[in-house]
């Protein structure tokens, strides 16, 4: 089989929010573009953040320019991506432990950054959010909101595709060829089939985030990222319908974001070597809860569904000295930087975009696209701030009760609910599969929220696996996404359930441990999952009589 070859104007590496936004921006300026991601879209940092659309309030004191960027982009996204945003509003609350000078200066700092900020009486705050600590001293309202990353990415990709671009998941960049100073081509390998594609773009834009150093290395460029690992925990119920921040210098466990049906407590901060280091430790979880209790005293009694870890794409300019150079991740700027590797490293045809945060993804994409266009001698203006994303212009699409309300409007009932916790119907699942083609159950999860509720996929996974199997023609042996193939629903099942259980390990106590155990008992005991075939076929070697 010969290698495919493609010659787009621009190859975007990385299918997170920034890459998807960049693809959209470039495509709208008339460039032929291709985006590749080593995995599914939104599986890196974009899909592993706390879900907060920043007002900028968090950065007002330490990084006013980041705060200003946030509020400007916050307003832009409310226009172009209203359907991905739940307008929960946000509050900054001062607990008795928070420094007076910080709290006193907060409203002024917000005003200086252009962020609307009103102080609201504590009694009013507690009436609206009764789970908050009654010890809070002051409260300020800011325009925070909850932002759904996967829909945002999908909508950006959809708009890009509508403008002629293409985006491929599960395509890993394995080599970047150079012809002297100039990049001459890229080899991309399909993670499912193993097939290779050679891409010869005029420019490469690396939006690989925390993995940008690895991409740059393929091109022989040294780029030191300082991945900042952050752990978040997901609560089963929304104990708040408003984003709650602690009014103090940013620290651990001081943000609670209501996202869809859950609430997410974030975050920790630890610089790590490897951006793929996504282990979540029980210590981190306990530390988060300890801090979070200052905001929500009953936190320890509430059910935690899972914990997960994201990696911030932090970048430390080697030239910078001072606090920025310390090992404290929180001291590193959250701002983004466009690295022109021609000017920086003498390698033509490659730029990297590093740093930044999801709230400013569009601005990052705009600036990166400007840089690309400048390199390609184009002067098309950016149009991404003015034009709503396809299907995302209506803010009524996204509020807590929307799935329940829409389901009831269609007649209600549970017969068609595949994932009952998150109310994913069979039609929603089929539409996703129509659009996506062969994929894993985990991809379905990101696309539909299947398996994200209390049972963590216990009652829906086998249904999803069966629907995938029923759709594939008999005797068909595709090589679908890793961990999910229509020809092996049982394998897809155990992969997914084990994968989900990883996120549960660090939070496995109380009801969640009970749930995990019940589900495991059903799948192993009643459903015969767990390689019973090999165990009882006489192949097993372990002595089952030896119970320790």
């Amino acid at each position: 089989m010969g290698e495919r070859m493609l010659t787009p104007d621009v190859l975007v590496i990385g299918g997170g929010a920034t890459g998807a936004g960049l693809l959209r921006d470039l495509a709208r300026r008339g460039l032929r573009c291709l985006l590749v991601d080593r995995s599914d879209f939104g599986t890196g940092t974009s899909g592993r953040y706390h879900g907060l659309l920043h007002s900028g309030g968090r950065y007002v004191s330490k990084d006013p320019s980041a705060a200003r960027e946030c509020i400007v982009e916050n307003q832009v996204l409310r226009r172009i991506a209203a359907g991905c945003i739940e307008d929960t509003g946000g509050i900054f609350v001062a607990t008795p432990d928070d420094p007076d000078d910080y709290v006193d200066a907060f409203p002024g700092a917000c005003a200086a950054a252009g962020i609307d900020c009103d102080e609201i009486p504590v009694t009013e705050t507690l009436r609206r959010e009764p789970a908050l600590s009654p010890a809070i001293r002051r409260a300020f309202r800011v325009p925070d909101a909850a932002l759904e990353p996967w829909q945002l990415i999908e909508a950006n990709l959809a708009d890009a595709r509508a403008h002629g671009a293409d985006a491929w998941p599960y395509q890993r960049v394995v080599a970047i060829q150079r012809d002297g100073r100039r990049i001459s081509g890229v080899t991309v390998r399909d993670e499912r089939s193993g097939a290779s594609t050679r891409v010869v773009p005029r420019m490469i834009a690396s939006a690989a985030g925390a993995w940008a150093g690895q991409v740059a290395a393929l091109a022989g460029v040294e780029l030191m990222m300082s991945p900042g690992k952050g752990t978040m925990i997901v609560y089963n119920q929304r104990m708040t319908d408003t984003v709650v921040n602690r009014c103090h210098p940013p620290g651990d466990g001081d943000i609670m974001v209501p996202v869809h049906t859950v609430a997410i407590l974030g975050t920790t901060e630890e610089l790590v070597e490897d951006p793929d280091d996504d282990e979540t430790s029980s210590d981190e979880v306990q530390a988060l809860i300890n801090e979070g209790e200052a905001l929500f005293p009953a936190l320890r009694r509430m059910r935690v569904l899972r914990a997960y870890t994201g990696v911030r794409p932090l970048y430390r300019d080697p030239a910078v000295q001072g606090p920025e150079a310390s090992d404290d991740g929180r001291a590193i700027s959250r701002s983004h930087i466009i690295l022109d590797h021609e000017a920086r490293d003498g390698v033509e045809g490659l730029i990297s975009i590093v740093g930044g945060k999801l709230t400013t993804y569009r601005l990052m994409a705009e600036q990166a696209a400007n840089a690309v266009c400048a390199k390609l001698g184009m002067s098309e203006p950016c149009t991404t701030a003015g034009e709503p994303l396809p299907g995302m212009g209506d803010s009524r699409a996204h509020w807590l009760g929307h799935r329940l309300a829409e389901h009831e409007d269609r007649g209600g009932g549970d017969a068609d609910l595949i994932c009952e916790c998150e109310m994913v119907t069979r039609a929603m699942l089929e539409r996703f599969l129509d659009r996506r083609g062969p994929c894993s159950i985990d991809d379905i999860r990101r696309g539909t929220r299947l398996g994200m509720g209390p049972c963590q996929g216990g009652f829906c996974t086998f249904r999803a696996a069966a629907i995938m199997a029923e759709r594939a023609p008999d005797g068909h042996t595709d090589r679908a996404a890793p961990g999910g193939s229509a020809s092996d629903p049982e394998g897809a099942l155990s992969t997914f359930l084990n994968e989900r259980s990883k996120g549960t390990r660090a939070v496995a106590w109380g009801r969640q441990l009970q749930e995990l155990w019940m589900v495991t008992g059903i799948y192993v005991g009643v459903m015969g999952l767990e390689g019973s075939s090999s165990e009882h076929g006489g192949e097993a070697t372990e002595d089952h009589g030896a119970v320790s």
Partner: protein
Amino acid sequence: MSITELIEAAAHEPVTSTADGCLKCNVCNTVCPVSRVTDLFPGPKYVGPQAQRFRLAPGSPPQAGSVMPVLSPDHTVDLCSGCGFCTNACPAGVRIAEMNSRARAQMRADRRPHLRDWLLGQPDLLGRVGVPLAPLANAALRNRAARWVGETLVGVHRHAPLPTFSRRSFRTRWSRSRGRRLRAPGSADPERSVVYFHGCAANYYEPEVAEAAISVLERNGLEVIVPQQVCCGLPLISNGLYAQARARARHNLTTLATFARAGFRIVGTSTSCTHTLKAEYREMLDLDDEDARAVSGATWDICELLLDLHERDRLDTRFGRSDRHLPYHPPCQLRSHGIGLPALDLLALVPGLDAVDLDLDCCGVAGTYGLKREKYDIAMAVGQPLFRKLRESGADEAACDSETCRWHIAKATGIRVRHPVQILAAAYVAYAAAEAEAAGAPSDG
């Protein structure tokens, strides 16, 4: 915190946060009598802990640019009859039926109440109007045209098991026979007296139940105090009218708490009223103050109290013989009390009486649920297995502790249904009669 304290803290956590416990295991769906008979109701898991995660907390700020606020966007929760079987079946302590009641109240909170629900929610109001006009009102209730009008205009099903008004309320009869003795707590001995909460049914429709209870209590040396009281408020709660229910609850709590604090026991003949005093004021209406706790701790269902007397050897067990089979249906509300089946234990004390638990779930009426036009058929279907078993038993009388169940079962089967305390009262009378006969009759020898 000790383990016991932890368990007790969990037992008193707010109803809606118990949704956190849901294992999604579907056990609740196996016991729901409503989803058993209608495809319209998706069952307790769906409308309970599952939908709960999609409901905003009351008091949430409206969200700009959306169709907010919709606190509870589902409407099928209205088909929950509130029987509470799901709550009892749940292995994880999720208070499903209670959660559904709250969701219904959220739905109703920003709407004007339906006239029908407002009327059915206030049996005391109906009673005050109906009793003075009893002959007329009862004739109207029997009149097919009037019932048709009631169904069309008000939404009460034409075949609804509506009780007939008593010609005189229990309170009127009581004050005529005993004088207007509104005793203050200080003037009676809490060891030798009880406070009677008659509720609306015994007052306006079935004074004979109240009188039976009083005769049984007095037979056992207890003086009965009947304080001023209004409807317990349960019909309002189950119709989602929490604010109105709260007003009644406060009224009752004010009176009853003084007795409770003075050490009196409060006894009721309606399992629904007593459960409301015990639990719903605190749990559903959020009136969890000192008064409510005192009243809750002092409240007893009549059979619970009598069985307690018996277990302390203080019950007069000289019951007359009654050789017959008596089917007994424990009402759903009784199961929520968590006190076992005291009526069955008491009826077992009557010589010759073979009282048997029918062991079926719900009669269907669930308070005012089965009276409603759109729910009457569901209520009848739910009750079918019970009605069938009762008819097959061949008995001409059955026993049940709750009034609306009695009326519903009686109307559906044509079999007389009485409160267990009426059976006990009759057994005392029978004993006395037999004694008198034995004393009066010449000895045959």
